[in-house]
């Protein structure tokens, strides 16, 4: 580096401006100042964005509610057993069995509570697996496009896009019975084994576009390393998309897991929403009057968490939009007061170059 040489040749420019490379450490940032900025950027701004959007508020409430149910619930609520109460008590009739009981007198509320943690574990592992594999393969293929690496990864992706996931999981579920029994994380991964293809293809094509962006080329010109470019420069652009896919993958895992347990294909140790449906169907609850709640309780749980995930996913992408962030950060918010608004295109109709 030869900055000192270059500063020698600087001509006084109007007098007032000092040499651009004259390093005087008069700029001191205190530790607390730095922490304040970090807090502002990573805690305050995202929270304030989320809390200002009704969709996010509802979604977050629901998802947090289920988390509480899954984590705290089992500690508070006793697991239920056969003939704990009378058979087929309707919901809200007996406060001991708030949501009623099934045909064998088991408390439905306790069943819901004690299956929530299993479901959440599957969701977590399945959604993370889908997104991590999809994003990794997609971004590598996209960044290395037109190389044999891309060709190989894209061909694999194409195969997985074409695989019908559900029948494959049925077959694999049978073969791997021993490995997934009592291991919800493994079930989540198994359910996602053929689900990452679409995401990988989409990420790849976005990567192809982003790779052409000038700022990526500028980073390459600056000699920044490839991991730095991919993870620090490009990945933030994919985050809104990744987050949406994370929540929709979670939803898919719930749907498919419940379906597989309902069909009685996956082995289980303790009851969950799917097995509740299965037991209800086998007991012909659909044909019996007074047994409707046996179906409804798990159904409501499934639909509710799914709505929560959908709403959260739809609104979380705003957290990654720098325009929205800037408005919510204290550090930069004042600049925006004068310039930008939420509805940005007001300047656009004016046109002109």
């Amino acid at each position, binding site marked *: 580096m030869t900055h000192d040489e270059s500063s020698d040749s600087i001509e006084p420019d109007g007098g007032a*401006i000092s040499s651009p490379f004259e390093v005087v450490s008069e*700029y*001191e940032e205190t530790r607390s100042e730095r922490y304040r900025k970090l807090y502002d950027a990573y805690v305050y701004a995202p929270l304030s964005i989320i809390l200002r959007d009704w969709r996010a508020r509802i979604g977050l409430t629901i998802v947090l509610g289920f988390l509480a149910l899954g984590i705290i619930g089992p500690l508070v609520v006793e697991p239920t057993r056969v003939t704990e109460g009378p058979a087929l008590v309707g919901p809200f009739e007996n406060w001991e069995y708030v949501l009623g009981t099934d045909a064998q007198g088991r408390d439905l509320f306790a069943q819901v509570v004690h299956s929530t943690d299993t479901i959440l574990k599957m969701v977590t592992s399945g959604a993370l697996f889908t997104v991590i594999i999809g994003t990794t393969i997609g971004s590598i293929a996209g960044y290395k496009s037109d190389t044999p690496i891309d060709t190989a990864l894209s061909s694999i992706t194409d195969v997985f896009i074409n695989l019908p996931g559900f029948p494959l999981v049925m077959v694999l579920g049978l073969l791997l019975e021993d490995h997934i029994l009592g291991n919800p994380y493994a079930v989540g991964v198994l359910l996602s084994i053929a689900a990452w293809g679409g995401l990988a293809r989409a990420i790849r094509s976005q990567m192809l576009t982003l790779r052409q962006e*000038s700022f990526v080329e*500028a980073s390459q*010109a600056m000699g*920044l390393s490839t991991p730095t470019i991919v993870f620090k420069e490009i990945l933030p652009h994919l985050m809104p998309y990744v987050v949406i896919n994370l929540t929709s993958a979670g939803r898919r895992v719930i749907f498919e897991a419940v379906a597989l347990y309902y069909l009685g294909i996956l082995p289980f140790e303790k009851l969950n929403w799917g097995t509740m449906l299965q037991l209800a169907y086998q007991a012909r609850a659909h044909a019996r009057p007074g047994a409707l709640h046996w179906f409804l309780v798990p159904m409501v749980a499934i639909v509710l968490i799914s709505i929560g995930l959908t709403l959260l996913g739809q609104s979380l992408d705003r957290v990654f939009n720098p325009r929205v962030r800037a408005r919510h950060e204290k550090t930069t918010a004042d600049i925006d007061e004068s310039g930008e608004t939420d509805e940005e295109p007001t300047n656009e*109709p*004016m*046109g002109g170059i």
Partner: protein
Amino acid sequence: MTVSESDHQRRPAHHDPILQIRNTSVTFDMDRGESRVLDDVELDIQRNEILGIVGESGSGKSMLASALLDAVVDPGVAYGDITYRPTDGEPVDVLDLDKQGLKELRWETISMVFQGAMSSFNPVRKIRTHFVETLDAHDYDIDEGMERAEGILEDLYLEPDRVLDSYPHELSGGMKQRALIALSLVLEPEVLVMDEPTAALDLLMQRSIISLIREIKAEYDLTIVFITHDLPLVADIADRIGVLYAFEFVELGPTDEILEDAAHPYTRLLLKSTPNLEAPIETMQPVEGSAPDPVNVPSGCSFHPRCPLADDQCRHEDPRAYEVNANHPVHCHHWSTAREEISMTDDYDVSSVLQSTAVDTRAQSEEIDPVVSLEDVEVHFETEQSFFDMFSDSDVVEAVNGVSVDIYEKDVVVLVGESGCGKTTLGKTAVGLQEPTGGSVQFRGHDIWDVQTGTDTGIEWGEIRRSLQIVHQDPGSALNPHRRVKTSLEAPLKRWNKDLDGNDRTQRVLSLLEHVGMTPPNDYIERYPHQLSGGEQQRVALIRAMLMNPDLIMADEPVSALDVSLRVEMMDLMIQLQDTFDTSYLFVSHDLSNARYIAEKTGGRIGVVYLGQLVEIGTPEQIIHNPQHPYTKALCWATPELGVEKNTEEAPIRTIDIPDPTDPPSGCRYHTRCPNAREICRTQSPESFDVPDETAHDAACFRVDDDHDYWTSKSITRAEETVFDD
């Protein structure tokens, strides 16, 4: 005609306005208040004139265009009086029409060409369908209308059948633009409003379309309103020019008067800030400051914050229309003194010191080794490449073909050419961002791709990477929108100055920001790119490159995304930074005026690129006043001038459209468009010849060599007599 309400009734009757605009405003309701994007405008448009309307982006010019058809987009509202006066029949109030009335007015009487021809056609329907459905919607006879459409397309030098049977994406930008003009004329309107119809096009295409506009105006008996940000562009064709600033007209007058003797300080400053080929570069000065926000227009004269003549009166009193003469109103309290205060030729020193020293520098630099040396560089792209491609041949685009050029210390080379000619690829190859498929790129004597693969260990790859930098065309995408100014600018320091701690880095960034005039820098470093103006973004991108302390910066159209009045300022800043940091520049530009400004001010050279080949290189003086290659001549012809005398000479090209780069012409690649092409040009590709006028001037054309076989070869242009033939 007038811009003021006080005297429009007094205008004598020999004026024959086809459109009268009175007290017309356009407003938008926004969160932060009402935004007035056209403010109480008065204007008469005369029958059969070409009226040029000039304004910077966000000056309200597109709003005016939309208001003429009562087509302001929601949630904007236009109000006031716009009266259309037919030759026979009652005047019509445009803004008062019902749905049916509007349908009859739009396209049938007043038609419009938008700036976005690329997106003005429905992508899933053929061009022909667009014509048919338009005729059908207005109950015109379709056969007759299509015959007319074909006629218009032919007048615009297009092959009617081929164009009509294409989908929009199958046409080049210039073809689409001409097809759009034809579409706007198919219902035989009286008035044609053109909103930046050439903004997205290349110089030659732009120029050709401007010439065509003159022809179609005569042929189809039109009144044309031509809206643009580019003053020189309309100077040639407009009868009158109106200048918009901050949503109102500041001046309106006959073209000659506006160009020669403008009365408003803004017009005068704008003229001075516009680079062109003829005026001495020392007279080109930037307009300080930037245009106001529509919500917050300054009180009094809206130009006063940027005006050197502003006094208390300007700050408080909105200037009425003063009359320079009966045909030339101007909104300035000081219009009579403006012409002396803002001289068009002041501080112009004929014996330009800078120029002579600059030439010296270059002459010396010939002696020493070049920083970057390109030898016979080739870059060929294959358009399709994947696993199953073994079934077919892929198309090869020869983006760069056999280019050799040396760039020295503190040297400046400007590459000029049409879009798609490979100038950007060539530039990126020179700074090691694109690997050539043939030839070599050397940095201080080392082949940079040998260094990269490790075959040449004389120099570190990192050293090369640090020394060759790039500044992009679009400052908006050159900065990562997710990263603050501080993070973006500290990245190169983190990578290359590991000895600096966080505070030192920030300090360096702060002082550079201050150096380029972004004060207070503490305020700027925490911002995201979208919180900066275009000019500020470009400054940040520029200092990011400078922080690497590079030896050569490739600047890809660095000013073309900026407003006209800001371009000179940005180019001056770049020249000043070059001095400070001792670097060399490789500029890429499609605009010969900008190229000339940079090259002349730094004593650099201009290289002209056509279809991947460097066809001529020399000093700006040589390129502009003694062009040797016919293509350079065409570029000079196509560059709009601010002069009063009309540029009416015949176009020095035979076809408007550039050949398909995947299938370039044989021999001399320019022979398909060259007015001097002969048989030999079809088969033989000319080498670069030294032009005998001075040193450092080469052109790749047989005509430079007096003894060449070319002179005995048969001309191929006689057979195809037509100019502008596809």
